[in-house]
């Protein structure tokens, strides 16, 4: 497994952990604002902090790779091609999700309706987070396919 592949796995696992954490964070926020739920919320925070930082610390060892020879290269034309295609997938997905989100909003509030300004950052977050996920998935899928053909 090369550096790009490892990086994609690292981002993907961290992303999934953060998604699960964000679901749990609802429980945490509720706990912080209620006296009886506070100890439980603290436990959840500590558990997730341990898990995420533990994984990040552990993955530092995973990402480190000793070179098998002094002339060994870290990335080449195939890695660049795979990354380029993954970025393209990301770009298409961002536009697709942006258009979908605006169409949904249009259906909800109507043509003459208005939305609070604070909704916009959530739309962008809702678009760019899946894009990161798709970038990593696209990288890993292409590596499993072999990378297909070179150009130039």
């Amino acid at each position, binding site marked *: 497994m*090369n550096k790009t*592949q490892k990086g994609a796995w690292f981002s993907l696992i961290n992303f999934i952990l953060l998604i699960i954490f964000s679901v749990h964070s609802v429980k945490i926020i509720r706990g912080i604002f209620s006296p009886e739920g506070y100890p439980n919320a603290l436990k959840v925070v500590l558990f997730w902090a341990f898990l995420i930082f533990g994984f990040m610390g552990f993955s530092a060892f995973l990402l480190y790779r000793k070179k098998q020879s002094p*002339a*060994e290269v870290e990335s080449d034309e*195939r890695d660049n091609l795979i990354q380029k295609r993954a970025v393209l997938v990301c770009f298409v997905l961002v536009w697709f999700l942006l258009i979908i989100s605006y169409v949904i909003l249009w259906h909800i509030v109507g043509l003459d309706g208005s939305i609070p300004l604070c909704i916009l950052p959530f739309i962008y977050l809702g678009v760019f987070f899946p894009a990161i996920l798709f970038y990593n998935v696209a990288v890993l899928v292409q*590596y499993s396919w*072999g990378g297909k*053909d*070179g150009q130039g």
Partner: protein
Amino acid sequence: MGKAEISNCIRRLRFENGQMTQQELADRAGVTRQTIIAIEAGGYSPSLTLAFKISKVFGVSVGKVFQYGGGDN
């Protein structure tokens, strides 16, 4: 371009050149070992530049390493 259209005989050439390892070939061609594995398996067709580099390592012409439409992979 499909998987079967460009074949190669890198594996045979490596063994004919003093049992050269994939890592050695990768280092000399300036690519990663994973790329050599993918090329040997027919999963990746290299760029023209890389094809020339690989054939230069073996000291043969590109046509001796890569064949279009069948070969001894």
